[in-house]
């Protein structure tokens, strides 16, 4: 059906013991959330990460990103322009008075 379904099929059907980087990064992201992969996936990933420095780096950076994105959103502040706030106030007031 869609393009992503094609990839879905790719990951479902071709994961063996010998992973390529595309599969390894897919699995390690999945592992961040589900914690436990299948036995085969778990060992294939471990093996791949034992020699692939780019995937190892990807794993480390992915963890840093998760942490930084979480923190940023919690603490960041955006501000509406005063002009927009004034408009909102008018809108609310007219609504309150109308009722």
């Amino acid at each position, binding site marked *: 059906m*869609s*393009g*992503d*379904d094609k*990839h*879905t099929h*790719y*990951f*479902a059907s071709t994961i063996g013991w010998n992973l*390529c*980087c*595309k*599969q390894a*990064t*897919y699995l390690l*992201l*999945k592992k961040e*959330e*589900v914690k436990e992969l299948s036995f085969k996936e778990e060992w294939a990933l471990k093996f791949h990460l034992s020699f692939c420095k*780019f*995937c190892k*780096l*990807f794993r480390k*950076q*992915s963890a*840093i*990103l*998760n942490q*930084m*994105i*979480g*923190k*940023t*959103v919690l*603490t*960041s*502040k*955006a*501000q*509406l322009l005063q002009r*927009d*706030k004034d408009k*909102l*106030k008018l*809108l*609310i*007031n007219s*609504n*309150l008075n109308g*009722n």
Partner: protein
Amino acid sequence: MAIPAPTSTHKLEPEKWVDNYADYLFTYAISRISDEDEARDLVQDTFLSALKGKDNFKGEANEKTWLVSILKRKIIDLYRKNAVRKEQSFEESDSYKVAYDHYFRDDDGSRPGHWAGKNNPQPWSEQKTNLEQGEFRRILVACLSKLPKAWTSVFSMKFMDDESSESICKELGISTSNYWVIIHRAKLQMRECLEKNWFKA
């Protein structure tokens, strides 16, 4: 849209909503949809829905929690609309969606699926991983806005709202395996964008 209807104690003071919550709601919205105009409209819609539903407010939750729950509902509705209107957006054809072969070798060439070279992860500058809030946030939002909309929804529900994959799939009506492919591709693209614009050593 169902508006939560709680019971007693907390009171609503609509005259103070703008001063007390407008910035908070705007921040909440913009970090999830990364579009200023849409975020501004959502804040307005939230206040309007809240006014309409204020007789149903029974004071069980506090005012702020109640307003956020209304906004959250609206954001999910928008996510859904984006996913439905652009069924395309979950597909290849999205013009600014970065293809897998941007990162990995062709499936039918030599060493298929391994990092292609040009866009491999590079070491990051240590000091950039210590937060400097304002600036990082600006770049994060810019990178998010380059993702296809449907991916942004999935990405922010997961990383900002900390929602489980099951509830995201249910809310947006996508399959679990499709969800993982979206997370994979969105993460590849976000990592690259943030590396180029922020983390570069």
